[in-house]
């Protein structure tokens, strides 16, 4: 839709702004000597308003041929043609208007005077067209800037939301409940392991809360957080949970958003190891190859296990977060392969101190 019609106030100010043009047109017609001042005003005022409406259609060629990146011949041809057409329509409509006026007593003989002024009016029409086109281009660039700002603000909000979701989800309450239940169990029988679990739990919480405050974190720190988590889980699952690591120092130095891996490590335990009677091994891999950082989290699972609720939430969060932070530069894949679940992250390798 034409932006002038977007809000009712705009049309009124637009028409008000065209009034000075009516004065110019009156001067032009009256100044030629043929028209009396009253006659000139009677013709100029309605014709200006008419043009004000006609020139609203200028918006369409302006939209079709944006200034940015347009080639001059196309720009000139488009607007030249449109200007001649608009002016012709205007002058013809003006003729009609004059004939109507002529039928009123004070304006006898007006048509002949008008016919003599057609070339002047036509030239004025073309001039007005270019004035209007310029105005429209200004208007369009305003609108575009506003849209761009709005879109950028929306994107920023989306990225922020993905972050918030990730932070809210970083600690699954069920993990806490189950861990506290294990502490409650160990207190009677094995107080020193109960104490160990309390400390492990506290350390995991303290570090993940601190990590959540930061914008980015070294992969090495992120993995140590995952180790704290797995240590706590190992007290619950005993021999069923084993961990294997293949971490390269170059990978450890890279930066990632904090707690990026946490939902994946949790999935590996909750949807993987815990579905197997004999348990299994969670494998963590991180390495830098050229300018890419690659992280792999692999675990066995029972393909016949009933699907548990909440599955997929963690994966969705990781995907949304990566998309918000890296855009198309991030690759995230989660696949199932012969009883094993693989989560693979590949992002541009960034290190501290480099921009």
């Amino acid at each position, binding site marked *: 839709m034409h932006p002038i019609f977007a809000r009712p106030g705009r049309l009124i100010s637009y028409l008000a702004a065209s009034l000075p043009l009516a004065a110019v047109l009156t001067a032009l017609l009256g100044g030629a000597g043929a028209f009396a001042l009253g006659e000139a005003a009677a013709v100029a005022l309605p014709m200006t308003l008419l043009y004000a409406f006609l020139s609203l259609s200028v918006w369409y060629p302006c939209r079709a041929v944006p200034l940015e990146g347009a080639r001059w011949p196309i720009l000139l041809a488009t607007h030249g043609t449109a200007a001649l057409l608009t002016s012709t329509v205007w002058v013809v409509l003006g003729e009609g208007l004059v004939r109507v006026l002529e039928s009123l007593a004070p304006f006898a003989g007006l048509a002949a005077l008008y016919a003599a002024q057609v070339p002047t009016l036509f030239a004025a029409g073309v001039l007005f067209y270019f004035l209007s086109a310029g105005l429209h281009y200004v208007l369009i660039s305003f609108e575009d800037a506003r849209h761009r700002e709005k879109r950028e603000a929306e994107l920023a909000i989306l990225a922020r939301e993905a972050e918030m979701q990730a932070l809210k989800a970083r600690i699954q309450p069920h993990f806490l409940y189950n861990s506290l239940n294990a502490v409650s*169990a160990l207190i009677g029988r094995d107080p020193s392991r109960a104490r160990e679990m309390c400390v492990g739990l506290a350390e995991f919480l303290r570090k993940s809360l601190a990590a959540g405050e930061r914008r980015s974190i070294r992969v090495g720190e992120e993995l140590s957080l995952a180790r704290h988590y797995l240590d706590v889980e190992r007290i*619950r699952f005993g021999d069923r949970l084993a961990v294997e690591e293949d971490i390269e120092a170059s990978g450890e130095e890279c930066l990632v958003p904090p707690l990026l891996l946490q939902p994946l490590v949790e999935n590996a335990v909750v949807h993987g190891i815990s579905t197997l*009677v004999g348990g299994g091994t969670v494998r963590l891999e991180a390495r830098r190859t050229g300018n890419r950082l690659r992280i792999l989290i692999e675990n066995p699972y*029972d393909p*016949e296990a*009933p699907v548990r609720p909440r599955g997929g939430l963690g994966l969705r969060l990781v995907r949304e977060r990566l998309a918000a932070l890296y855009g198309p530069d991030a690759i995230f894949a989660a696949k199932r392969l012969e009883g094993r679940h693989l989560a693979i992250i590949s992002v541009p390798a960034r290190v501290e101190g480099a921009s």
Partner: protein
Amino acid sequence: MTDPIRVLIVDDEEPARVLLAELLSRAAGVLVVGECGNGFEAVRAAAEKKPDAVFLDIEMPKLDGFEVLSLLDPAIAVVFVTAYDHYAVKAFQVEAVDYVLKPYRQERLLEALARARERVARRQRPDPARLAAALRPAGGWAGRIAVRDGGDVHVIPVSKLDYVEARDDAVALKAEGRAYRKTQTLASLAASLDPGRFLRVHRSFLINVDRLRRLELYSKNSHVAILADGTRIPVSREGHARLKALLDGRGGPAA
């Protein structure tokens, strides 16, 4: 006090089992008859040790708590003990005696124990509909059927199921050339299965529609369904109408 209540503990985490065993055996008149780390073990132990009550975790390997419940003697009182609160509604539907959230106080566990005792004392059997409700995963159709054979458990994915025949108070499930008996009514089993794939074609027969090869006219009012392996299943007039409606909607083999 009369006989002690026989209690079975089922949880896949060892510390959780230890805690239940410690608190329950400390209470008077309780005999802990076993501790199990997964659903298969639980079903076997329940068959061998005849517990009065089972304290049951929900998220476990092999069989989840609801599947275990569906395979237990309905006279056994079930108390769910879990960290997850979102199964509570379903636990109520399957008439579990109680639903205890981890971590819990000793008093809360003893309260659940008292309720289990009460159910056992009254020899109150819950509605058999609880079996059907237990088999249906929350917000979806059953993806597999667990069947008990003495102490053994077979898990049959519904895609492997050919047809089911009603036999008195039980059903016979046919899958991959084998027959399994399950104590459940055909109606309640049908209620847990996706009606777009499994159809009751006769008072006593439910078929997997994917196995249907063709339909033959048997008499004036009845048809017979020929399955992929050649099995002939009687189809009643109502069954034929249901089958036609389903196949028309699917664009499957013509009747």
